[in-house]
């Protein structure tokens, strides 16, 4: 067994174990943290395939940003674990059917002779100085420029739509205008009143 194979099986075992834990542990925060672990290990496997850009981007985007917000929400929820387990048996047939269907479809795709997964040749060994990041950038910005830009525009539209959906004026919140706050002058706020001293009535 080569050293690569040992590293692969090490990562793969952790990945599968963590992925199983995501769906089996009872505490949702633990489940989210196991998901973080499986992302991290998947990134290790991608690194093994010399796809360093995708591997680091997975850590950066999914572990560093998405899962943080996910944990943020999960920790805030007051989840009643007993109530969650009510109705498990009534949902089981539907869930199991969908699960089996997905497994079957994936099996068909992989096993089918026309998919070519069995006969796919091993990738050529890249020479020294090969940079996956550079190659990816070259392909994205030359061969696939229009599809890439199109995807970016679609994302932008989705982002603007998401902001537009939440944009509403609330009458009960008091907004601050920092520009006005720093422009304020002493004369506008303080009124000096000169009051003559009053004599005490004797």
């Amino acid at each position, binding site marked *: 067994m080569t050293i690569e194979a040992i590293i692969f099986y090490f990562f793969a075992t952790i990945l599968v174990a963590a992925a199983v834990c995501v769906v089996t542990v009872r505490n949702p925060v633990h489940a989210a*943290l196991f998901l973080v672990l499986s992302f991290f290990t998947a990134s290790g496997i991608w690194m093994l395939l010399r796809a360093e850009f995708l591997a680091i981007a997975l850590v*950066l985007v999914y572990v560093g940003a998405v899962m943080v917000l996910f944990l*943020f929400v999960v*920790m805030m929820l007051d989840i009643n674990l007993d109530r969650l387990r009510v109705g498990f048996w009534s949902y089981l047939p539907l869930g199991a059917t969908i699960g089996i269907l997905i497994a079957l479809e994936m099996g068909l795709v992989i096993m089918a002779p026309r998919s070519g997964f069995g006969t796919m040749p091993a990738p050529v060994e890249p020479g020294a100085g090969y940079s996956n990041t550079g190659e990816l950038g070259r392909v994205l910005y030359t061969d696939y420029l229009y599809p890439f830009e199109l995807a970016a525009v679609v994302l932008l539209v989705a982002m603007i739509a998401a902001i537009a959906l939440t944009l509403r004026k609330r009458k009960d919140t008091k907004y601050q205008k920092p520009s006005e706050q720093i422009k304020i002058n002493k004369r506008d706020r303080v009124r000096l009143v000169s009051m003559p001293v009053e004599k005490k009535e004797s």
Partner: protein
Amino acid sequence: MDLIYSLPQLALQLSKDFFGVDLGTYIYILLKTLVLIGCIVGGLQGSVAYLTLWERKLIGWMQIRMGPNRVGPLGLLQPIADGVKLLLKELIVPSGANKGLFVLAPVLSVAPAFAAWAVIPFSPEVVLADINAGLLYLTAMTSLGVYGVIVAGWASNSKYAFLGAMRSAAQIVAYEIAMGFALVVVLMVSGSLNLSEIVNAQGRGQFADIGLTFLSWNWLPLAPMVLVYFISGIAETNRAPFDVVEGESEIVAGHMVEYSGMGFAMFMLAEYASMWMIAMLTVLMFFGGWQAPVNWAVLAWVPSIVWLLGKVFCVVSMFLWIRASFPRYRYDQIMRLGWKVFIPVTLVWLVFIGVWMQTPWNIWT
């Protein structure tokens, strides 16, 4: 000096003679990496310990006090006394806490803070992992530091710790974006993700040719980015004036409130290691790394590591200066600064530099 540079060659030769060519090379690389890791981790822990002393001394002088001066000459043994004290203290786990995660949280916060140092070039020759995606790796590692804080806040089962963790998560995610954009601008003008390349690219230009290297560094054309990056760095490391995460007047010590002894010390270790990290990155990205500010023959004898560490020390002292000078930001103002000021500024500068690079006046060819 020549002896130091010939040492690795000598070691490689010895190892080849002893174990044979193939195995010898492997063993040499393994040993060299281990020695480098030891040097970096040991050096970092030492600098973290003495940064705490320097912080107390400097802020003391700024406030016309003496600072620590009892343990050892000039108080120089204070960090060691603090370390021993923290080591000997009992680690108390609150009864309602989630025990496993409570113990794991300090580890989660220290590990990325140290792992990020793997790609830092200390001089043209000395770098542990000279990888092409160095900048990307650094952003990924710094974005992982938030897990220690969140997990600590949740596992403590205390509302103060939890509030601190929630504040931290929102703050770090917000400032990470501005920081990322600032680094994208640096990446654009250097044309590389490799940190050594980024430093070398700053040594080229019209000013560098006439000996004034410091005018060719990135800080001049990217001046707004330096400010954004440095201030976001303060916010990322939860330092004053952005330390609402552990604002002691409101939520005592934020996510660390339930920790004692070494657990607490680990969070401190991570915080100060990240401070060194941000200072190091500011120097590498914007202030020419190990390059001398002027290319004069008088200064040629100064080793490059002196320039690098000198600059990093100045930037780290800025952190302390800022802590001594400014009152704590209010929480909504922090969010406003991050989302509504820094991100637009970086986006505008990104477009500006992009357009500049397409004109005939492009200085980064």
